[in-house]
């Protein structure tokens, strides 16, 4: 992706170049087709030249235990039994959702460390990343991770390098069952609609698309069999949005804070200008009797300023 494709840039108050009109892309993850094979995890690490640590089994199929700077996507497995006792193994590919209103970008203090391209990809530029972790604070999906090696933040780039040359992301290409598909956001919504019809015909009455409006929609969307209960899928937030505290912090607090500081200084300035300085008028030589030694404070030592030091 190139400079002209950037529509938003972290810690930048002016507009970014937005001359190029390119289609929004989206990755659609059809959870009902996903078999949790982790091909996407492996393909992601292979393409991005990442090798996480060889960890431990923690009593589940989930591995590694969590997203990390070296694992940008992760299959999360949840076993759910419905009221009728029917078991469902709900497997969700976790990773960056590429929000239209990205909390990470909002929170980032370093200009250009996080950029959003016109096609919707939210990308981290580690060259500008200062490692503060504000992106983690800002993210409603708990996705970015700071590397222990270099203290830079990392996450899924939606393979911006591949998408930039006209290819699909590595996870999409590899997905054996076609659970992950990629295309224009519009096409993906159409595709999702078809899938939802199929799922409803198979008894999943609450099947639906997960494209949460709270973050302006996402460029990674899910088809869920239980769209009414996203939390079933290893805690997918039902109505994610940028946290109000982050909003205040990176919203009104910023200009108001500066304003408050500037105003305080200005008030001082005008006070000085109008009221003038506060001087001790009578403070002239000989006005007060000279004592050679002054007791400064009852608790403190005695000191003779005239004595040689």
């Amino acid at each position, binding site marked *: 992706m190139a400079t002209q494709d950037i529509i938003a840039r972290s810690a930048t108050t002016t507009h970014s170049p937005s001359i190029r009109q390119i289609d929004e892309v989206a990755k659609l993850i059809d959870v009902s087709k996903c078999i949790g*094979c982790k091909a996407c995890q492996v393909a992601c690490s292979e393409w991005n030249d990442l090798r996480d640590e*060889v*960890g431990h*089994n923690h009593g589940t*199929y989930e591995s590694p235990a969590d997203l990390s700077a070296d*694992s940008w996507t992760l299959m999360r497995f949840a076993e759910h039994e419905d009221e009728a006792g029917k*078991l469902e193994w709900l497997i969700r590919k976790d990773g960056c959702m590429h929000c239209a209103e990205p909390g990470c970008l909002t929170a980032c203090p370093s200009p250009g460390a996080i950029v959003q391209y016109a096609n919707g990809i939210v990308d981290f530029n580690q060259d500008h990343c200062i490692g503060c972790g504000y992106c983690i604070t800002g993210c409603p999906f708990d996705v970015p991770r700071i590397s222990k090696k270099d203290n830079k933040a990392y996450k899924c780039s939606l393979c911006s390098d591949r998408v930039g040359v006209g290819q699909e992301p590595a996870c999409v290409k590899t997905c054996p069952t*076609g659970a992950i598909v990629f295309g224009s956001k519009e096409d993906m919504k159409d595709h999702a609609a078809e899938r939802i019809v*199929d799922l409803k015909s198979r008894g999943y009455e609450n099947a639906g698309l997960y494209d949460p409006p709270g973050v302006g929609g996402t460029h990674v969307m899910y088809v869920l069999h239980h769209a009414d209960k996203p939390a079933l899928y290893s805690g997918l937030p039902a109505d994610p949005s940028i946290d109000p505290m982050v909003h205040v912090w990176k919203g009104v607090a910023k200009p108001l804070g500066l304003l408050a500081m500037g105003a305080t200084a200005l008030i001082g300035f005008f006070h000085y200008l109008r009221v003038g300085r506060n001087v001790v008028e009578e403070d002239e030589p000989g006005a007060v009797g000279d004592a050679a030694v002054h007791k400064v404070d009852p608790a403190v030592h005695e000191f003779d300023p005239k004595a040689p030091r």
Partner: protein
Amino acid sequence: MTNHWTDIKNADLVLIMGGNAAEAHPCGFKWVTEAKAHNNAKLIVVDPRFTRSASVADLYAPIRTGSDIAFLGGLISYLIENDKYQHEYVRNYTDVSFIVREGYDFEAGFFSGYDEAKRGYPDKSGWGYEIGEDGFAKVDPTLSHPRCVFNLLKKHYSRYTPDMVSSICGTPKTQMMQVWDTIAETSAPGKVMTIMYALGWTQHSTGSQMIRAGAMLQLLLGNIGMPGGGMNALRGHSNIQGLTDLGLLSNLLPGYLTLPSDAEQDYAAYIAKRASKPLRPGQLSYWQNYEKFHVSLMKAWYGKNVSADNNWGYDWLPKLDAPAPGYDVLKVFDMMYQGKVNGYFCQGFNPIASFPNKAKIGAALAKLKYLVIMDPLATETSEFWRNVDEFNDVNTADIQTEVFRLPTSCFAEEDGSLVNSGRWLQWHWKGAEPPGKARTDIQIMAGLYHRLRNMYATDGGKFPDPILNLDWPYLQPDEPSAEELAREYSGKAITDLTDPATGALLVKGGDQLAGFAQLRADGSTSSGCWLFCGSWTQQGNQMARRDNSDPYGIGQTLGWAWSWPANRRILYNRASADVSGKPWQDLKKPLVFWNGKSWGGADVPDFKADSPPEAGMNPFIMNPEGVARFFAVDKMAEGPFPEHYEPFETPIGRNPLHPDDPRVTSNPAARVFKGDMELFGSAADFPYAATTYRLTEHFHFWTKHCRLNAIVQPEQFVEISEALGKELGIAAGDWVKVSSNRGYIKAVAVVTKRLKPLTVDGKTVHQIGIPIHWGFSGTARNGYLTNTLTPFVGDANTQTPEFKSFLVNVEKA
């Protein structure tokens, strides 16, 4: 596979049983999701565990490991009783009307002719058809004869009532009936179910019969030869199909030709026995051409040195004295264990990890004088002598085996072809040099062969003839090229081939042959594997073709690579059309049909292309009957119909079908070696039914050497149900010790809702899931070889070990 991967998209119903396609074959499983998404198909999974295949299934039913014949037998009975079978198909394309000999009987778990001392059926004389005076088998098209196959079949499975099946399998009856009803719907002509199975059926002491039961089900439903149907063995390794086709098995020669036995001293009799004549009038019985294939093979191997005068080198073939399959790996390792084997070669094979009872395998290897490993990776077998604590607790100094480890290239570093489970021969190209001094297997075999030949030529030795006479026409004798070898197994005309009728020149001497129909038994053709004949024609390498066009839109890409036999994509595809030659699914998926002059369509017809429907030739042209067999005649070791026997280690201790006779608790015809029977455990000491399997993140014992795969599944674990976890006080993440009567492993417990205790024969049976992928070498965390636990017994026909059903105990470690 009778069909192939892409063809699964044509299915209306997919039954995954005895396999876990989503995990073991994810990219093939794609065609299941395609069938669901675009053919409105349903997916049924029947498995002891709620697998990743089950996670996307429409219906899932649990089953106790090792009880599949009961499930399928019950289903067969249900279909017959409820008239849910494809009548026209069954009547015309199967042996239901054939009359079985009077000597056939089934009584109290035994078929006729059992010999208890020999643990088998040395006398199978009753297991055949009544033959008429015309030399053909007798049939009763009205199916009223009490000994016609249909009535015997019906009688045999009448014992498999839903209650009995539910009690044997532990499958709750409502779930079972739901599955059966859904399957029964595909008996409608044109409704197709595919069965996808793998080692979940193969690796049992009754594995072959489980698969037969599946095939019988498909015949009843009219699903064999159909697009979207078939019996689809998913197969395990990238070229396990090819190496089997090429006959790298204890009793085979290339192309499913078989080695002679000691008794077969006469060449003509050897051929005659295999070149079966038709059992019904007008049938093709393609194996009549056996000698053409055999002679062409011997010409490919021995060239000018064989002729009719020396019976085409018949004496140079070793003869088998052991019953089929001869010297299979279990037998060889038992011999090795007894000190009767001195040398052993492992070419890309890791037996200490892959064979049952690791302790026995390790002890056997330690008795070898020399062991040669050819592998790209440092396998456990190559270091079976190294002490790796509890994982491999051996005394190195005591092991006197000389071990040679030869580094080989991997797939990326060589040209050649592999055969996938859809029987496609696909060519691949070298992308880089192998690391260090690694060489190809071909180079190594050539290097060994030349040294041996030179020694035998100069020093003499035992029976040097086949070694000295082997034809080695390769331009670089030390390194035959993949292309030369491919041309050799595909086959060529040695001299000009002319049409015997017209005298016209068919193939110029020295040219590649177009297909196995051109092979001859007079020494004028050579083909190292008749089934592969036509894979490299005079037009070039057919395996390297890359035209993926699909003109009929049903996934039969005839221009992509090359499929045996004769580039056919679906076996028995003549059966996809009715007797008159019209497709069962006329508009939707016409596969192969009669166009008035010849057979044709989306696939290469598996038939005599110019035989009109009214000629009465039947679709199963490899069988002398011309039809498919429900009754296996004498082909199976334990009987013509599959019968449920318990695994050798059974959690219920008896066979509910024959509760009073311990001789038929488990397969009465399965071979058990001395000492191994004593190592079987009982439910009293080892109460839980265990099964071993692959995970999608790993491939056997290879990918633990790959960092990326080690990351996504790093450490050995076992799966237990929440109920058992509660009973034993085991929580997810705890370490547990799992032991069988042969050893123990320790692993992390995954406590899951996906395994549920089942009620079997009135008892609660817990099942334990044990993935296989860890060992004492590689990048993933060290673990125990799972086969420490498994019993040393195989299927009665194939001797494939019973890895899927055995008993263990579980305790907190």
